[in-house]
């Protein structure tokens, strides 16, 4: 299946700075999901985006789905040390998920 490309691979920020990770596909996506994996943990579902141009917010996290449904972003405002982890986007087909390579976020206190 088609991969989703995720950038950057790594991001180091100072606590309080903003953070954004991007997910891109060469083909139109039916939907996109975002997961967070803490160090030593397992992936945890954050959100699913379905509609073109959709924007969803969860406290300091803002998720966007592009108008063409080929890209998505996750933005964290004023990062905290609890935001540390790897953020994955995943393309969902009719049955299974195909994950991007993830963006590993580290936050310096």
């Amino acid at each position, binding site marked *: 299946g088609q991969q989703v490309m995720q950038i950057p691979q790594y991001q180091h920020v100072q606590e309080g700075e903003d953070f954004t990770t991007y997910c891109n596909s060469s083909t139109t996506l039916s939907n996109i999901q975002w997961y967070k994996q803490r160090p030593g*943990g*397992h*992936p945890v*579902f954050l959100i699913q985006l379905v509609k073109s141009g959709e924007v969803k917010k969860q406290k300091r996290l803002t998720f966007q789905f592009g108008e063409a449904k080929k890209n998505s972003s996750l933005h964290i405002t004023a990062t905290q040390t609890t935001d540390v982890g790897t953020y994955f986007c995943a393309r969902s087909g009719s*049955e*299974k998920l195909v994950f991007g*390579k993830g963006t590993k976020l580290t936050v310096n206190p």
Partner: protein
Amino acid sequence: SAVISQKPSRDICQRGTSLTIQCQVDSQVTMMFWYRQQPGQSLTLIATANQGSEATYESGFVIDKFPISRPNLTFSTLTVSNMSPEDSSIYLCSARTGHSGNTIYFGEGSWLTVV
């Protein structure tokens, strides 16, 4: 949501041996999957575990190496056969419930180290 229990959570295995990982879900699920996550890498789908029939394997994974069972709606096993150090990885069970749409829930993973 669904709670997914995996065991063992962690093991150190000898080269050439096989290990079976068990996955139990606390509710009936429509689909179960097995993923592998090598150190520092993303998740790669190994196969879809089908109830009462052979699993559907992704490219690069074969039944002889990763036999999978799913005898009922809530339980599945993955065996990693004839292990080598390259099989050192986290193996994750996941499931989709009928009520969760496309959301997939993950177990806590089984961390295998092959020496």
